[in-house]
């Protein structure tokens, strides 16, 4: 489980929850795709309007390193890249609580994910302008994003240098880097105590030798 008391770290658009867990890489990328696409909606008053159809949109907003996008070399574009995910130790042994009757242990850690948004255009100026819009949108809506998508904290987005890239013609890319943090929780239920009442029937030299078998589970059983 990833998130806070009221919201899980996953996008509003339906994803297959069995395959894509809250807080997992595709969920994180989905959240920021949704947020950036929302900023470039038709009534946002911007020159660039996002459309789900890659032939109609005049700004492409997708995940990076994606071989499923049929629109090749399209610009302007914003690409969402997930960088490393690092769980941070916040308590001794990550322990949060223990439920004594069944000895269920609950753990938690603060997951930190670094993200990079890349704003690409054929012109350096346009790349910079789009990057500025995206950076300020992320900066100004941090509180809302934290509340709505289950994040714990959010670093300020850093706008990087606009640099050329050699493609079919020179493209300019401006990176925006930031990190998000959210709580992740998990539990362990030792199965040994559940087996404590198992009985065993042993036949020894023609005689029944019934024994109540006690498993010594993690030195807590008796």
């Amino acid at each position, binding site marked *: 489980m990833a998130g806070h008391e009221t919201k899980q770290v996953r996008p509003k658009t339906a994803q297959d929850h069995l395959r894509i867990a809250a807080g997992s890489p595709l969920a994180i990328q989905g959240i920021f795709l949704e947020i950036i696409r929302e900023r470039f909606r038709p009534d946002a008053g911007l020159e660039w309007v996002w459309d789900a159809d890659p032939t109609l949109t005049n700004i492409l907003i997708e995940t*990076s390193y994606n*071989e499923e996008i049929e629109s*090749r070399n399209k610009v302007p574009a914003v690409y969402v890249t997930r960088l490393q995910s690092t769980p941070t130790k916040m308590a001794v042994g990550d322990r949060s609580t223990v439920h004594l009757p069944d000895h269920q242990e609950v753990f938690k850690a603060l997951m930190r994910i670094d993200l990079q948004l890349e704003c690409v255009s054929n012109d350096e100026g346009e790349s910079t302008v789009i990057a500025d819009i995206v950076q300020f949108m992320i900066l100004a809506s941090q509180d809302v994003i934290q509340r709505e998508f289950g994040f714990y904290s959010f670093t300020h987005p850093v706008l990087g240098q606009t640099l050329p890239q050699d493609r079919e013609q020179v493209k300019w890319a401006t990176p925006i880097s930031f990190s998000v943090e959210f709580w992740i929780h998990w539990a362990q239920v030792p199965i040994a105590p559940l087996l404590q009442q198992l009985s065993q029937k042993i036949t020894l030299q023609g005689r029944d030798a019934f024994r109540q078998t006690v498993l010594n589970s993690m030195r807590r059983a008796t």
Partner: protein
Amino acid sequence: MDVLITRTIPVYRTPEDHGVFIQWTVTTAPSADIIFTLERAGSPTGPFDVILTNLTGYYFFDKFRTVPEPPLGATRENLNFLSLVRTIYYKITATASTGAVAFSINGVKTALPPRQERLERKIKRDLAVGFKFNGTSAYILKRKHWGVRCRKCFDVLTKKVTNSKCPVCFGTGFEGGYETPVLITGRFTAPNSNTDMTPQGLSDTTKMRFICADYPDIDPLDVIVDKYRNHRFIVQQQSETELRRNTIHQSMVISFLSTDSAEYQIPVNTDMVPVIY
């Protein structure tokens, strides 16, 4: 009456005093007064900017890099006579008092001795004969490098284009973006296509060479349009073969542009009957 530009030589004296010396001659001149109009463009097909009218002499030293004045409220990027890669095309129009009009267009270049000039013509003719068999018609779109700046998307302070698909400048920062298309014949070599995985997903690049005659001079960032297919290419590298520093033919590395590029919005007359083989 015929008028012919005989010499266009770039001259550098001081940073303040440099330009292009242009000389012309009139043949079969009528018995009348003749006045000349001198114009300048980045492409042999124009559009031409008028530099001076009512000239009566047969030469002129063009150092008027700020001419013509931009329209009210517009900004002009002035011509750089010292640029190493720009070709300036001059047009001289002779108007006789009898009403006869003639004009000549010439790029800035040096002249060859007569023997080498004949050799140059022979080599160029051989190339032209070859193009009859393997040549393809193509339009050359010379990218503008001076003139009135785009009033829709260009930031004058930082000199940046802020819309790569601007309908006014097509991402060049100059109104109109490109000079009038020049129709030429050249040869496209077999393409080399690559698909690479990049942070922006799969990126397709198709590169090839385009070989053509020396005229007009083609520079990197100019656009070549395949007349029959409307495929558009951007020039990435340009190399030349020369005879005593005079260009004989040009060979360019060109890259096939994505079909959603702004360069496909540049109006080019490709309205023709396709070739039926």
